[in-house]
């Protein structure tokens, strides 16, 4: 065993009230893939099946994860896309609550959506 063990982000958990509805929502709008479903849990991943995995957790009386840093909303989960305008247009067309696209330094663009349970989810785009 190494003195400096390696780490990577394997999974993050998101609380949801209706796990089936939320699975469908994330798969539909973010093109995620379902890995497994077990009782109160469902694990999703990116289109290329790479980690980290997003684990939806059924918590009936959950409070939405909508953290604020001062007046700035702080999404608990942030997606990268190479074409934020297209994603934004599709979300609007699907009546998903989504903010306007903000333009920042270094060509960073981002917007904010809320998932079916009110969790803040970010979308970012920047040159790679």
């Amino acid at each position, binding site marked *: 065993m190494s003195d400096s063990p390696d780490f990577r982000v394997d999974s993050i958990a998101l609380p949801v009230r209706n796990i*089936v509805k939320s*699975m*469908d929502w994330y*798969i539909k709008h973010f093109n995620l*893939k*379902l*890995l*497994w*479903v*077990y*009782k109160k*849990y469902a*694990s999703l991943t990116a289109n290329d*099946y790479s980690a980290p995995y997003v684990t939806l957790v059924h918590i009936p009386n959950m409070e939405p994860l909508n953290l604020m840093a001062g007046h700035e909303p702080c999404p608990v989960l942030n997606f990268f896309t190479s074409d934020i305008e297209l994603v934004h247009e599709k979300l609007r067309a699907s009546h998903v609550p989504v903010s306007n696209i903000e333009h920042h330094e270094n060509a960073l663009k981002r917007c904010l959506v809320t998932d079916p349970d009110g969790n803040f989810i970010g979308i970012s785009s920047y040159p790679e």
Partner: protein
Amino acid sequence: MRISAAQRQSYWDRGYTVIKGVFSKEETSRMIQEHEAIRLAFIKDKSIVQDSHYPLSSLYPELHETFRTNDYVFQFLTSPKYFGLVEQLLGEEALAVGTTFFFKPPGKNSFLLHQDNYDVGASPQPSCALWVSLEDTSRENGGLCFIPYSHKQGLYSSQTPAGHRYGLVSSRVPQVEEDPVLLPHGYWMEDMTTQAGDVVAFNGFVVHGSFPNNSRYQFRKAFTTHFIPRSSESVFVFNNQLVDKNGQINRLPLNRHHPLIRDLLG
């Protein structure tokens, strides 16, 4: 017949267990005879018709829910010897969802890796199958194979690539001995060899399949029943026709979420 603590532990830990010598030669032979009679009646009334593309297997299809029309199969299903096994394993009363009789003639293909609760849709606990070996079975004549411990993560998506950490149901049952099996690290496939009268009990989440029947003349006849715990909150199939050990029909709420879950799993 009492199930040992080791057998019960294997069922819960590994996802399956084998209970040897449950049924006599007389009982297994009678089950085969009854299903042969049902098959012949289906041929006579043209419910079974030979398909020139599958000349042998089309004459030996799987027979479902035969207990609903055949007295001996009904008695077999509801016998304390059979029903008692599942109740010992689950630690509570059980309800039978449905049955299947397999002829599996020579030349029949492998059965793909799958999880029974994908179809049964019992919630929150998965189904439990009792698979009765009516003849001796092995890898050669289409015996069962299991991925031990694969039931621990619930239902897997069949879209996940084989070899991926969660790609357990995307792998393939080998057609011949030399075929590679691409399973995630830490998992392996186990062959099952049984003798007539043995019962294999397995969890509805455990990933399993069966080999092709590569024998020249041996069938692989088996009878299986899917059970669910009586405490189940809902079930997807036959929710209005669940049979208890007294032969009475019971009803449970329909698992309305399950169709979408199945769609998303692929």
